[in-house]
């Protein structure tokens, strides 16, 4: 339930921002959509097992959170960072809605 609401809020915010003027706000929207995707991925692994997946330190395998989506999300975060940096560099160069003062 919480994951669903979280994903819904993030998607709504992200979609709203990517539809605005200017690459910067689109980049912000992409960041929020990235968060939403990560929430969905982790939710897919199941939210009722919440122990860190460290062998030897968990009580039972059944209690451990699913490590596979975690690995996916971890790399996804780093890639989103790379893409965000590229997008803002793009927004900061050239000219247009992002770089001109509001008239």
């Amino acid at each position: 339930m919480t994951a669903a609401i979280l994903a819904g809020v993030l998607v709504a915010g992200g979609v709203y921002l990517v539809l605005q003027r200017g690459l910067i706000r689109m980049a912000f929207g992409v960041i929020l959509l990235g968060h939403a995707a990560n929430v969905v991925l982790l939710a897919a692994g199941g939210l009722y097992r919440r122990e860190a997946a460290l062998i030897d330190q968990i009580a039972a395998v059944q209690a451990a959170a699913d490590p596979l989506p975690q690995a996916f999300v971890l790399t996804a975060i780093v890639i989103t960072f790379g893409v965000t940096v590229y997008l803002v560099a793009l927004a900061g160069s050239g000219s247009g809605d992002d770089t001109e003062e509001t008239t």
Partner: protein
Amino acid sequence: MVLVTVFIGLAATTAVAPLLASRLGRAAGWPLAAAFAALTALTATQAPAVLAGQAVEFSWAWIPSIDAAFRLRLDGLGLLFTVLVLGIGALIMAYCARYFDAKSSQSRFYTLMGIFAVAMLGLVLADDLLLLFVFWELTSICSFFLIGGAGDKAVEPARRALVVTAGGGLALLAAVALLSVQTGTTQLSTILADPGWTEGWTGPLVAVLVIIAAITKSGQVPFHFWLPGAMAASTPVSAYLHAAAMVKAGIYLLMRFSPVFHDMPLWNGVLVLVGLATAIYGAALALKQTDLKSLAAMSTVSQLGYLVAIIGVGTSYALAAAAVHTLAHALFKASLFMMVGVVDNQTGTRDLHRLGGLRRLMPASAVITALAALSAAGVPPLLGFYSKEKMFAGFVDADGPVWAGPLLGLLAVVAAVLTFGYCARFWFGVFGGPLSERTDVREAPAPFLLAPAITGAAGALLGVGVVTLAPFAERITADTGFPGAGVEIHLIPGLSVDLGMSVVAIALGILLHLRREQAGALLDRVRTPFTGDGVFDRAMAGFVAAGSRAGGLTRTFSPAAHLPPAIVLLGVLSAAALWWGTPVGPLQELLVRPTDWIVVGCVAVAVLAAVVVRTRISAVVLLGVVGALMGLWFLLLGAVDVALTQLVVEVLTVVVLVLVLRRLPSRFHSTGTLRRSLAAVLAVGAGALAAGGTLLLTNRRELSEVSRWLMANSKEETGGINVVNTILVDFRALDTLGEVTVVGLAALGILALLRTTSLTGSAAIELTGGTRPEDDPVDNTIVVRTVGRIMAPAIVLLSLYMLFRGHNAHGGGFIGALVAGAGLCLAHAAAPDPRRSLVRRIPYVPVIAGGLALAVVTGLLGYLVGGGFLTPFPIELGFTYISSAVVFDVGVYLIVVGAVVAALHRLAIAELLEDDAAPPGAASRPADDTQYPMVAVGSGGRDSEEGEL
């Protein structure tokens, strides 16, 4: 084995052609001709086996999954065309050695001719449909480049030729696809040997597709117009591609498919109709031409029409005639074209109005041309006479209604009369009559005349020795669907209908030549309301305009305009999936803690605020809040590594955003109410669907089997107990390698981007220049500097600890690198001047490249220990050992650190350095690819980063 030797030999010859041409210039034609001739002789050694019915075959697996192979097969039909391709090719190469200017470089020409020869050889030898298609298109492409190489005026003709022939190639591709799907193989000989697939609709459909491919390639009405246009190319190209070889590819294809189609009325009807129409139309147009080369081109169109029609007749007699005439036409038409080039070179013109009477000045040329022209006109005892007579007989004996034979015979005679007329016009126009204005013309040198003399003599010798062709014609007839059918060829023809037709054709031809003035006037009165070129150009322009209109519907510079359709479509799809119900598992026991709700509530408030704020800096702060809350959420879920990554990335994101945003206006643009409302509606809809989908589709399963296996085996397999990290660097290391490559490329992308365009505004911040401590760039960083001096090295050390402990505890390359990045950001912020920042001294490109190299090399070492790429192995260190996966993780660490440094460097430091390097007083510098075009900053050029933070 001989087949593949010939093929590789030709390819090797082509490979050395540019070398030869750059050394020898035009004379490269001689060694190339020798090579072609040797390959022809090598192929000829297979003739006895082929004649005995033993096709020579070669096969080498290419795409085994669809049973496509590099299959070559030499049967009688293949032998005829191979000898044409290589033999005529040798003569053309010899001709080229004298045709071009002595000084010109012909490397491009010889290379393209060589590639064409390879493609053509492959085409006629291919026993695999895919191979056939590839070579078919390759010949079209070579033709395009060879025509287009002739200069500006050749651009349009080259384009027309390519579009028509490659378009026909698409029909062949469709036929190939249909055949391979229907028969389950791509082996041509198997498909033709078992015509079961011709039942039903496949047969006629494939027949039509093959006909389209053939008649576009062979310049038949209504696609004939590209061939005269192609005469813009140099004469050797016209002689080889557009007379002897490439345009014969269509003839070859039709003959190749004759065994399965020769008794299909559709096949017979279309080919005979198209062929005879082309034969008569082409011959009539040839009579009108005043340019020698255009005359020869229309003659080719007409002769190819003859061949298409006789193949369409589809009897054993007709196919034997087609085989003999293919040979005869290749010989006399190559001669004629080469003589056009000779006349052009010696006199400087190809215009019939300005030529004439050259028989005394160029006697040898006159004889050679006469041999070719008489053969084309069908005068005994030249080869053209026998082949044409065979064709007459084929037309008259055509199957079908009683009137068919006589009608076809009549039309064939009409075409033959016109042919005689234009052949006479060719010879008499150049060599006959009174001498024109030019009197200083000299005979061409012997080496120049060698090649056309050989083709002309061959036409004569084979005419006298025509009976020797009988076994070959018999073999080809067998290969084209009539095994066992005898072919009789007599040197002295008996009294028969076809002899009568020949006599009539020659007599009327002489009459036509004598009355050429009247005939010409009559032809001039016939005007077609449109030309093929015109129709083609209009159709082409129409296509382009339609494409432009279709593209115009979505062409916009605003990225936001592209998104709503995609979002709506996604919404419709997911709504449909929800409506029709995807089967979902039972909901697992829910575990919702009160803390979850706190996070969700805070995120909702922060997102709402981030959406409505008007200043950019507040949006950045709110995004940072959302990111931090996400980290907290991940922590609550037990995803400790993910949470660490998220938190550090959040810090780095804010740093990078501030570096860029400080250059930009502080407020967002306002958007209209309508746009905001539409965006809000879409956003709420998308959010609702996302929430619904997540609710329905997640949290409904046990731990997946893969995860259970990973949990159970991670320790034994890799020695690491942090399962997330072992997945990243052991089990799915290849994925990780791909992902860090993306990160590295994003960093390099920023470098490339900022090398060609500059960032807006300036990295420098003007302070007010007051006397208070916060106005001084050194004083106002006192807090950060003091903290940074201690913390930055500590954080970098911490990052190494995080890196190396990753296999057994929370951490790893990604997290370590991001922590190091945060430390470097702090060090950068602590420097009073970015130019003195520590970050400046880190060579980020080598770091990224080195990291990638380390990761790849570690992966390759996996092969040495007997595993595959990226198989982990233990590395002894004396006192302990580490897994090679940790070394791989070091590579990951270096790439990500390099990327962070690259971003800092490019966004905050680089332009200041270049600014310093600029000569004093220079307001701006020319932009090149290593420097920024930027305006020098003002005198207050010292800056401080944290003035904004």
